[in-house]
């Protein structure tokens, strides 16, 4: 199955103005403060916040015996402050070279490239956030990504 697409869609309302939620996504120090999961820290978050600009994030899990680092690289595709942010994400080495998720021990079928779409809107001082995380099938990372993937999908459905 080569054209499988999967996505996660989450909607949340935060008790905060939209500008603050936008900063959570776009300011490295703030991003680091929430992006790490239980037991994981985010020691590196580089964000060249412009369309085509690069973003690179390191997540680190440290235990008594060892620490494991996972690097993610991607580009910004849409930046519309403070309502819409779109970026891609792939697993990589520390130097930014793409690596396949399977080489990192992820299960077969884990996508090479994922895309995160964030939409924000303010209602009475609160912010409604809709986030969609889309997975692209394995084997597409080197092929120029989304346009091709969507072209393929469209022709398959046509």
């Amino acid at each position, binding site marked *: 199955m080569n054209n*499988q697409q*999967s996505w*996660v869609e989450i909607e949340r309302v935060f008790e905060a103005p939209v500008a603050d939620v936008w900063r*959570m996504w776009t300011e490295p120090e703030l991003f680091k*403060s929430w992006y790490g999961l239980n037991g994981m820290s985010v020691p590196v978050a580089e964000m060249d916040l412009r369309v085509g600009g690069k973003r690179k994030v390191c997540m680190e899990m440290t235990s008594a015996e060892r620490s494991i680092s996972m690097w993610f690289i991607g580009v910004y595709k849409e930046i519309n402050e403070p309502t819409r942010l779109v970026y891609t994400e792939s697993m990589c080495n520390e130097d930014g070279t793409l690596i396949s998720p399977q080489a990192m021990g992820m299960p*077969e079928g884990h996508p090479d490239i994922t895309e995160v779409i964030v939409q924000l809107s303010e209602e009475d001082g609160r912010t409604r956030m809709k986030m969609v*995380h889309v997975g692209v099938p394995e084997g597409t990372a080197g092929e120029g990504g989304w346009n091709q993937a969507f072209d393929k999908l469209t022709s398959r459905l046509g």
Partner: protein
Amino acid sequence: MCYARDAKNHWFAEPFDMSLPAVSKHIRVLENAGLISRGRDAQFRPCRLNIDPLKTVVDWTDQYRHIWDVRFDAMSDILKAMRDAEDE
């Protein structure tokens, strides 16, 4: 609408207000997506549900939904702390 047994197009069509060719088109999309496979039995094309690709999708989305939920809980706490700090 599919079961883990062979099924034929007209069985799919029966409960829907839809022509047989329209059903065939939908089935072709499912087949291209790898979600069903079709055999041949005289003039019939029996369909068989293939759940493995769906399972991959579900596994991936489950895993990531959980990750994002935890992150957004954290974001919510931090936003609240920022607000409280401003109020003081």
